[in-house]
């Protein structure tokens, strides 16, 4: 009987997990099904599209370079701050740094630092001259795009690394490194970097997949001769001619191939990085990269300053300041805020409501998925769990929409929460997987010897040790849910407006002042989530923090 119950529970668990993790695949199959028959001529015409090759290579370059750059910077920052009194400050500040939306960072960077941007104009203005045109970030280029995305992703990777770091005996390893005669800097790279790199594969992949298919940033700051692949694909996908439909189908297949290449490159990069470190260790070469790390002792101040500058820019815009006015001639007013605040309350409540439930459910299903794998000793490859992040979102949600209409589903909050679940699940999986699998078993063994049952051990020990990572996962899942535009609009059919559906629609018009109002409010939601998470996380400690006060 007991085995029967156990089997039943297990299979129910698997079913739930399979449903949530499998929804993306289902959506893509339904949504991508070619609406027009594809012939050989279509394939030839597809590859004859002018600039396709360059568009693909540019996009691949950005998708590789930006996340990797962000990861390296994040690791160097982590290594500089981890055993430094400022670590607490950094953890506290991660919240605001994480909550600026990508769009805000991109807009802010371009506005402040582009040629003819605020900063250079102000500097040159001091001498009564106009800043030269060649100075500053080009407005549409690979460089700007890589910079914007990598700057934005550093705090995300820091969050991942800090969740990982709680589960690793970093201090002990550094000591062992010292005993072997390595400097602390070298030990960081030789002993800790390889394992962290391995453990953050998922996060890397998520950042790469995001960059690969991000549309608004590609349009705004990406190069457009030729356009980046996401833009080209979107144009086909929203076209109506049979030729465009055929291109859209083939284009999505190419997108999947590109994704495969990115996954492959993660492994190649890992192998290459570990090889380099090994050769360096054996040959006792000096660590150049370790010397670079020192620069990043200033990262926190720099990044905080940038965030404040961007926020200040948006605040000024929202109060009626623009490039025509100086500080004294602007028509300062809160009219916009007063106007919009009345209309914002419902979307805000909806956002909170949906994000609250979908993040808690997402984290719960993640725990279930991890636990089931642990119990049945069946480890499924990571990309199966991350399909929501990896597969093309537009086709996926379109497939869901077809199914949702077929079921005559209502346009209620419940359905929207369900449509966010795959995304919150995937992101909390990538945050939790590392900590969950590198938990120190020692405590549970001790508890078992005291006669605790499995579930008691689970709740009292494992869950408690995981709490900081759980909080990070919840905060990330929450902000992911807040940021969803396509599923919310397509499944909710506009019946349920959220702050993001409003913000994205408004931002499409490029009107500075009103866009600023919505971006600030949109950033406030994840900010609250990260803030609560970080306050709580400081009160409770992860497994190794418990040993290393």
């Amino acid at each position: 009987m007991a085995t029967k119950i156990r089997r039943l529970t297990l299979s129910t668990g698997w079913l739930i997990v399979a449903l949530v993790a499998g929804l993306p695949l289902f959506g893509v199959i339904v949504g991508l099904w070619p609406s027009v028959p594809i012939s050989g001529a279509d394939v030839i015409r597809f590859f004859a599209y002018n600039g396709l090759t360059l568009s693909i290579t540019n996009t691949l370059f950005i998708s590789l370079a930006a996340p990797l750059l962000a990861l390296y910077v994040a690791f160097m920052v982590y290594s500089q701050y981890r055993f430094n009194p400022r670590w607490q400050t950094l953890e506290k500040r991660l919240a605001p740094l994480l909550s600026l939306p990508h769009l805000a960072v991109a807009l802010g960077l371009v506005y402040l630092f582009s040629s003819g941007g605020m900063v250079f104009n102000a500097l040159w203005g001091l001498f009564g001259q106009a800043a030269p045109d060649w100075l500053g970030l080009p407005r549409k280029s690979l460089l700007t795009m890589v910079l914007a995305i990598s700057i934005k992703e550093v705090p995300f990777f820091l969050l991942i690394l800090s969740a990982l770091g709680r589960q690793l005996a970093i201090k002990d390893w550094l000591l062992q490194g010292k005993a072997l005669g390595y400097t602390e800097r070298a030990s960081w790279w030789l002993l800790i970097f390889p394992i962290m790199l391995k453990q953050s594969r998922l996060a890397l992949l998520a950042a790469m997949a995001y960059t690969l298919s991000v549309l608004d940033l590609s349009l705004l700051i990406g190069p457009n001769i030729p356009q980046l692949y996401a833009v080209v694909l979107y144009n086909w996908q929203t076209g109506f001619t049979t030729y465009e439909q055929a291109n859209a189908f083939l284009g999505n297949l190419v997108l999947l191939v590109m994704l495969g290449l990115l996954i492959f490159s993660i492994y190649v990069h890992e192998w290459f990085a570990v090889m380099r470190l090994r050769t360096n260790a054996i040959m006792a070469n000096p660590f150049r990269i370790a010397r670079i790390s020192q620069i990043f002792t200033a990262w926190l101040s720099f990044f905080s300053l940038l965030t404040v500058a961007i926020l200040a820019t948006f605040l000024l815009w929202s109060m009626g300041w623009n490039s025509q006015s100086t500080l004294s001639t602007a028509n300062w007013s809160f009219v916009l805020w007063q106007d919009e605040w009345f209309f914002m309350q419902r979307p805000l409540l909806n956002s909170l409501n949906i994000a609250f439930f979908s993040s808690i459910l997402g984290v719960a299903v993640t725990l279930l998925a991890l636990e089931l794998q642990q119990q049945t000793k069946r480890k499924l490859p990571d990309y199966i769990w991350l399909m929501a992040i990896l597969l093309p979102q537009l086709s996926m949600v379109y497939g869901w929409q077809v199914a949702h209409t077929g079921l005559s589903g209502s346009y209620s909050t419940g359905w929207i929460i369900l449509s966010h679940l795959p995304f919150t699940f995937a992101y909390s999986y990538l945050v939790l997987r590392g900590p969950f699998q590198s938990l120190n078993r020692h405590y549970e063994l001790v508890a078992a010897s005291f006669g605790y049952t499995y579930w008691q051990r689970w709740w009292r020990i494992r869950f408690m040790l995981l709490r900081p990572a759980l909080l990070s996962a919840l905060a990330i899942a929450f902000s992911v849910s807040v940021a969803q535009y396509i599923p919310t609009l397509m499944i909710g059919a506009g019946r349920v407006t959220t702050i993001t559906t409003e913000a994205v629609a408004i931002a499409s018009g490029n009107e500075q002042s009103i866009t600023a109002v919505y971006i600030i409010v949109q950033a406030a939601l994840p900010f609250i989530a990260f803030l609560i998470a970080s306050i709580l996380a400081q009160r409770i400690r992860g497994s190794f923090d418990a040993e290393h006060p």
Partner: protein
Amino acid sequence: MWLTSKSLRFFSNLKRLNQLAASIVLTAVSILAVLPGVNAQQVLDTPIIQLESSSQWQQTLAEAKGETVYFYAWGGSKPVNDYLRWAAREIASRYNVRLRHVKVADISEAVSRLKAEDGSKSAIDLLWVNGENFSYLKEQHLLLGNLWSSIPNSALLAIQKLPLQNDFGVPIEGFEVPWGVGQFNIIADESLFSHTGSKQNTVTPSSILAVATQNPGRVSYPRPPEFHGTTFLKQLLVALSNKDQRLFSAATPQAQEDLLPLLWNYLDQLHPLSWQQGNAFPSSNTEQLSLFQQKQFVMTVSFNPNEIEKEKSEKRIPATSHRLYFAQGAITNSHNLAIPKAAQNSAGAKVVIHFLLSELAQKQKLNGSWGDPSVITPLLDEASTLPAQQELHSSWQQVIEDKWQQKYGA
């Protein structure tokens, strides 16, 4: 997703519509709309009241009571959003119909929803649409017909003065109702074109080239297929070919061979002088406008003839800016309202259209912060209307976009 209203493209392979049926419908509509008579005032007053008291309309009003109309419309413009908030209040108090603006970043999202619903009960009651999106929906039989004949205020439409019968070369035939018009114009500083020798307030391809020569790197246009960019190219083509008549009929290979090189030769001269030497273009008219506001550009393009006044009053552009148009005339088209065939609140949607075409609503749209030109006869303002230039035949749109992509897209 950050999107501007997507390029308006349509099929080169439009089905040849049954000419006879089309003309019958059109005649019927025009008889309804324009009763013979020169005294416009009289013409306008009587039929509307008659139409409004017809049993058909009374039934629509009764049906509409208490309905909620979900109106899918681009939400990227605060003036438009504010206007719709005003309209929602008015409609609620007059007709007891609730208007909900579903803000989308791009109306193609609504089209894709209609595609997914595939004719089953729709979540959309009303949408703001034109160009290729309309022609697709019409071709797929997803739209409700006979709107002009079932909505009283359609009789006010200025079909005599404005090109309201066709939407980018596709006959409207009652499947959508014009709501406002756009006219292509250029915004620049007064002094910019003053010594290029072109006529007052007009530009020509050569005067633009002269300006680009004097201000290298400060002239550009939105990257096609964004429709402001494509329209800019169309205006150039009209001017460079001296209004060649072949532009207004299907683009034959011969016509393409004769006319398009004029445009490419011109662009070959313009691009090296334009922003980033033509290695990048603004993604949209809004991006170009913000670059103009930041003094990176000396000119910007717009489809709203009254945009300049709005920008000036908000002090977003210098007070010395003024509006110009192409000497051959400003390309003019309408943006429209349509009801999906499967809409669940079509009566309410008709009431909303009826209100939006009323004199009160059209006046508020024209004089309020939006400043969108009116489409009804009583409010036609000759002074603010630019000399119009007919849209090119729809087949040229695709040709220009594809060839541009081939030549300059990479």
